[in-house]
């Protein structure tokens, strides 16, 4: 009997969910642009999702019955059970494109570009985010934005052609799911890749290696290390005070988001005013140090964060994530690097023992592990097969020329 009641509730809500997504946003509405950001008209964004009276009655009755008989005792439980449908088999069914197209991005999605992008073996990337109508991102905690349920993000990877598009979605129970869609050679469609075993693709653009598509476990290994699994859409990454020395930084183009535009258009609320007035900028001693710390934030900070933020940061005493609320953030990061003893040791006798040895990049573990692609040694540990020479040059320049031995914190 309980199962039957549960099924009624699931069926009623599930149908409503699918309708809701198909109906939004309205592609016939005109878009406008403020601050170079493509926006959804406010009168549309603030409109509640359409719900027919009949479906509402059915859902309400089912919800009450379900809440009475199910042990969770919360209506969230109903939502959790109801609107979690299997991942679509095709990327074109995830809501990224206008219907019938695999190239034209659906109106209402917002393109964005983090100022410190993740190195992915030179892949060219494009990114988009979707929020359900009437919803917003709560920035009360400036380092851990709260994304509304129903948030979706896509990241497209190209190496000569489109290879894969990664997809993140926040579900109605508050959890996140991760998937990758692999493009066919013709570029006409991308299909859901295996969640269990990462696929590999031979590309004519990079004949010397096979391109690796991550498994779901791989996705979670990086994304779930941080307090919030959305890594490139944050206060520092979208600061209008962009770092011109950031390796592989993509120039901001019209239509892409930054903090001010997000707030102006209602995508982002409760961001502290002082952050809006003084956009996040890493307080470094030199431009090279700023870019180096920014690179580490974007490429390493999701695993090397504050231990208390998620409980999932790697317990090695290295902090590489910046805190936009803390003026001392850069110094705190530097203290875990400069002169700090590395727990990781190579077997050779003359190996580097400090994470960063001022003035001596060749004796510093940080660039050594960035350069290595031995899977036991390399950093980051997954997601790349070739080292990032541009970033390595920056890090070594910073260590050799910007850091003096006097800054060594060890006696």
């Amino acid at each position, binding site marked *: 009997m309980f199962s039957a009641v549960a099924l009624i509730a699931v069926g009623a809500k599930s149908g409503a969910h699918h309708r809701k997504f198909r109906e939004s946003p309205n592609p016939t509405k005109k878009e406008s642009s403020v601050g170079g950001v493509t926006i959804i008209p406010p009168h549309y964004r603030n409109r509640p999702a359409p719900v027919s009276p009949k479906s509402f009655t059915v859902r309400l009755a089912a919800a009450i019955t379900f809440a009475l008989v199910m042990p969770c005792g919360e209506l969230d439980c109903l939502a959790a059970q109801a609107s979690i449908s299997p991942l679509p088999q095709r990327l074109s069914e995830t809501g990224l494109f206008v219907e019938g197209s695999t190239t034209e991005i659906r109106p209402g999605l917002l393109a964005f570009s983090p100022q410190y992008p993740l190195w992915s073996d030179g892949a060219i990337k494009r990114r988009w985010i979707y929020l359900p109508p009437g919803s917003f991102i709560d920035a009360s905690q400036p380092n851990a934005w709260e994304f509304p349920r129903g948030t979706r993000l896509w990241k497209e990877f190209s190496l000569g052609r489109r290879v894969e598009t990664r997809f993140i979605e926040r579900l109605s129970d508050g959890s996140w799911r991760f998937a990758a869609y692999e493009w066919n050679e013709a570029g006409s469609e991308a299909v859901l890749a295996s969640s269990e075993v990462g696929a590999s693709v031979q590309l004519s653009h990079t004949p010397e290696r096979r391109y690796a598509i991550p498994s779901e476990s791989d996705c979670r290994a*990086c994304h779930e*290390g941080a307090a919030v699994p959305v890594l490139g859409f944050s206060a520092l990454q979208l600061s209008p005070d962009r770092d011109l020395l950031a390796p592989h930084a993509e120039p901001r183009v019209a239509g892409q988001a930054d903090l001010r535009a997000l707030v102006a258009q209602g995508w982002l609320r409760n961001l502290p005013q002082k952050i809006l007035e003084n956009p996040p900028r890493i307080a470094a001693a030199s431009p090279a140090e700023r870019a180096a710390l920014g690179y580490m934030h974007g490429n390493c900070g999701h695993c090397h964060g504050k231990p208390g933020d998620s*409980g*999932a940061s790697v317990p090695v005493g290295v902090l590489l994530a910046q805190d936009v609320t803390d003026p001392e953030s850069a110094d705190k990061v530097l203290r875990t690097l400069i002169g700090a003893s590395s727990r990781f040791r190579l077997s050779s006798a003359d190996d580097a023992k400090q994470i960063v040895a001022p003035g001596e990049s060749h004796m510093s573990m940080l660039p050594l592990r960035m350069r290595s692609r031995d899977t036991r040694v390399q950093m980051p*540990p997954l997601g790349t097969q070739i080292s990032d020479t541009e970033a390595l040059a920056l890090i070594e320049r910073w260590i050799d020329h910007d850091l003096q031995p006097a800054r060594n914190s060890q006696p």
Partner: protein
Amino acid sequence: MKPFHLKVSLLTGLALIGAAAVYAANPSAAPAPGAEPASATDKVARGKYLVTIAGCNDCHTPLKMGPNGPEPDMSRMLSGHPESLKMPPAPKLPEGPWLMTAAATNTAWAGPWGVSFTANLTPDKETGLGQWTLRNFKDTIRSGRHHGRGRLILPPMPIPMYKHMMDEDLEAVFSYLQSIPALSNRVPEPLPPPVSSQ
């Protein structure tokens, strides 16, 4: 005894036996309503039981030679491959079904993946699990990655089996590991396989 009372007594007895059998088969089952929740001591005891029967000591506690052959050196319980034991290069095996070699301590293993050394599971802050969170531990066993996010954990660690452990069992194991004596022992990093086999 009247027949009715005899039936009741028999049924009650059977019910008690049945309940005892169910409990014996599943001692970790949820307590009955109103029962006290499992204490931290219970959790540590459960963890000790799991660590013991799951064979963690087999590889993470070094073996020493005893009067009847190799036996676990419990003075170094669960502290992993001894830092002081520098291993020479692993012997090269001929082609054939023999694939792996192990140190006499059972804490270093060589195979096609290179050489792996068993980890220090004691709560030492610098060389063991002293700074780990429960989340770190669960992520490690579930993902098969070092710290839950880093390199893949190497053979012979039976991640393909252990990753199926229930959350409460992983919590119990972690509670126990955090309760044992901390031993400072910096285990070497794994070594790559010989160039010829890479």
